[in-house]
């Protein structure tokens, strides 16, 4: 029965090739537009570490002056997203979190041991020891370092897999030496390919999407090497004075990312009280002039505060869906026209004994066939469109980088995964049914006699 209906549907489509092509084309374009928008949105809106959704928190404190806001921030109520060194150092001592990370990104020159490789610029994350466990960084060789190594500081370094390949040709490099900014560091670990997207632990670069750093060194090197931040520095207080690096780190300038992980979600409240206490205490020394506004936020809230998804993807999403609606309306109109012009045939079928249900079912099958054909074409169009977008949007990201992770990141931004493809198929079925339900019902309602008369 169903096969018969499908055959009828295909025959009916062939009878009216131009109209059929237009209908399938309209659905395909609508599906493609909304699929592309959904893919881009999906890539930006993912949660990078869902298993720590309610134990991992970013810490912020409102260190700003008591000024009226300058009006160019969309959310003047948010505290600065980074901490000043004196505050980070003070709250790092707390034992309420099971782990605390204070860190920033620096950039320096690397001289490889292997003289065949030219020296090159590299990104360095200067961080306290808990970084690797807090963010669940996978290692292929060795390990991170201890909190004691942060203090001394120990001349140890953790490499990204890409950097290990580049410097040591993917050999086990633990125990070997790397020269960073003129100083010898001993490799203690190599990270496996690890690319949280968005790069939530430090969202300062490239609107939240970037590859992790090449090198990780203990936090103590910040002062020992006077390693300045290669990220966003914001002197949020008028009292801040810039004199030299050693003076800078004591000032009310925010430039450190600070994260904590709790054993259980309820520790967050205790920690909030601890931070508020610290800030209230600092108020007595004339710092933190605003009223308490220290936010300890989970990863999702953190991504929302940074607006990682962005207005553009939201707008594209809206546009894609409006487009799909236009295509549904269009197909509905064409389908109605097509069914009505073929009404005499249905009339004949009714007269020969087909029930109203048969007629409606036959037309619904035709509608589903159109929807699926449109959806399939739409998926192909989506793939083409995403390939074009890859060139259009991201070719600049790849210039001057030999890091394969960067290519992988760009791929991930325009990659259709299985749920998105499934959504696309569901969407095309829905489109077809939405567009065809009314025409099929209309055609089923017609009295056969009307059409037989005019034959």
């Amino acid at each position, binding site marked *: 029965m169903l096969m018969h209906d499908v055959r009828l549907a295909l025959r009916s489509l062939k009878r009216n090739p131009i109209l059929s092509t237009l209908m399938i084309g309209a659905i395909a*374009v609508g599906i493609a537009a909304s699929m592309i928008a959904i893919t881009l949105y999906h890539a930006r809106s993912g949660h990078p570490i869902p298993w720590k959704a309610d134990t991992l928190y970013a810490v912020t404190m409102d260190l700003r*002056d008591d000024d009226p806001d300058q009006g160019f921030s969309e959310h003047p109520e948010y505290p600065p997203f980074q901490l000043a060194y004196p505050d980070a150092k003070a709250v790092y001592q707390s034992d309420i979190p099971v782990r605390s990370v204070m860190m920033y990104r620096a950039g320096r020159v690397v001289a490889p041991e292997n003289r065949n490789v030219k020296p090159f610029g590299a990104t360095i994350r200067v961080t306290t020891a808990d970084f690797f466990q807090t963010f669940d960084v996978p290692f292929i060789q060795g390990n991170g370092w201890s909190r004691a190594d942060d203090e001394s500081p120990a001349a140890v370094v953790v490499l990204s897999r890409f950097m290990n390949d580049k410097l040591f040709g993917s050999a086990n490099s633990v125990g070997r030496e790397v020269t960073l900014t*003129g100083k010898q560091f001993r490799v203690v670990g190599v990270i496996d390919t690890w690319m949280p997207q968005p790069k939530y632990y430090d969202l300062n670069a490239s609107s939240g999407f970037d590859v992790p750093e090449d090198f990780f060194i203990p936090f103590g090197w910040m002062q020992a090497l006077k390693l300045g931040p290669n990220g966003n520095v914001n002197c949020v207080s008028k009292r801040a004075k810039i004199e030299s690096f050693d003076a800078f780190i004591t000032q009310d300038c925010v430039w450190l990312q600070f994260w904590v992980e709790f054993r259980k979600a309820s520790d967050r409240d205790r920690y909030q009280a601890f931070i508020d206490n610290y800030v209230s205490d600092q108020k007595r020394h004339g710092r933190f002039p605003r009223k308490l506004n220290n936010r300890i936020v989970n990863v999702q809230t953190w991504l929302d505060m940074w607006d990682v998804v962005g207005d553009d993807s939201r707008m594209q999403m809206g546009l894609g869906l409006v487009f799909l609606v236009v295509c549904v309306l269009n197909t509905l109109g064409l389908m109605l026209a097509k069914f009505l012009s073929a009404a005499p045939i249905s009339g004949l079928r009714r007269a020969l004994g087909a029930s109203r249900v048969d007629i409606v079912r036959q037309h619904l099958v035709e509608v589903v066939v159109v929807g699926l054909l449109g959806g399939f074409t739409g998926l192909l169009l989506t793939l083409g469109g995403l390939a074009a977008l890859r060139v259009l949007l991201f*070719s600049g990201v790849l210039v001057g980088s030999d890091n394969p992770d960067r290519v992988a990141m760009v791929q991930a931004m325009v990659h259709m995964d299985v749920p998105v493809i499934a959504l696309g198929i569901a969407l095309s079925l829905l489109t077809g049914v939405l567009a065809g339900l009314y025409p099929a019902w209309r055609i089923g309602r017609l009295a056969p006699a009307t059409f037989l008369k005019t034959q």
Partner: protein
Amino acid sequence: MEIRALLSALWRSRTGPFLVAAQVALTLAVIVNVVYIVQQRLADANKPTGIDLDNMFWVGIETLDANYNQAAAVPVDLTYLKSLPGVVSATTVNILPQWWGRMGLPFAANPKQLDTPNGGVPGTIYFGTDTFIDTFGLKLVAGRTFDANAIVQPSSDMASAIATWAPEMIVTRAMAQKLFPNGDALGKTVYVGLTNKSSTIVGIVEHMQAGPSPARFEQFAIQIVIVPIIPAGPGGTFVVRTRPGERERVMAKVEKEFADLQPGRYVRRIEAYDETAGRLRQGSRASAIILATVAFFVLAVTIIGIVGLAAFNVTTRTKQLGTRRAIGARKFHILRYFLVENWLITSGGALLGCVLALAAGIKLSTMYQTPRLPLYYLVLGVALVWVVGVLAVAIPARRAASISPAIATRSV
């Protein structure tokens, strides 16, 4: 004209026309807003930079030498670059204009302003030498460039360089006007936030842009302060302007020779300046292309809808039309009938579309913090919908007009 007959015919088979009208409405709302956004983005991306991008390039060098002498190396580097045939001028900079990063501080004519809430004028800072103006091809409208003897030697790091500051500064006209609204900025002293320093404005350049920016942030891109400081090393970024047509040749030579002027150096990156500036605009240009493509397809789909409905109507009314021809209607009357019918449908859609467009426009302008959608966009949108509607219906209508009156006699 038989307008009442037309309306009643329209009402009797209202589903099709209603669908087309709804499509027209959505299409109008999409196109008007998309065109407005695209136009804004392109305008932001294409604002003048004041910089001679097409004849410039930059080269970044790094060194591994722990005892690198920045103060001694920079003059050697600049002398080398300026000596190359085809080079107009060269300077060193702390941060490239038209690059992602920027550095800024508040400035004020009166130091007390710097202590008040939000006091001072935000200015983007560039370090350079006496040849900065010439290298970037900026137009000096008052005063002079830096005194070569007033250039401050490199400090140990960026923070110390800012703290040391310099006795002279050159500002853009936009900055000068913000600091001294009376237009007498030249020769005046300007105070610098966070540093307790001040310097004298020795020159004013007509225009310079730090990078493309949305209209509401534009002041941060064009209020620029240039100070004669050699940036902290080791290594650094050098900008070179060549005579037209000589850039590629000079770049090839610099890439080969420049690093070796000092031992242990290498070229981090060398790039034509228009390429650098273009990359900063890639996002807005790409989004403009995406949005324009979507708008185009929405319009195309709607045209298909209009053609489809009209063609269907012509087919189902063939006999009717033949009868009308047979009892005296002329081809012109038939043509007019379809054109008017279609015009009514598109106009109905356009009316609804204007409401939708305005609603979407308000939503988008709060989202992007841009000015409201200007009303003449709606007028242009409606005009576009009318023209497209007439063109779309023309072919089916002509087919209808050419139906032979003899049809009427066939199967009565």
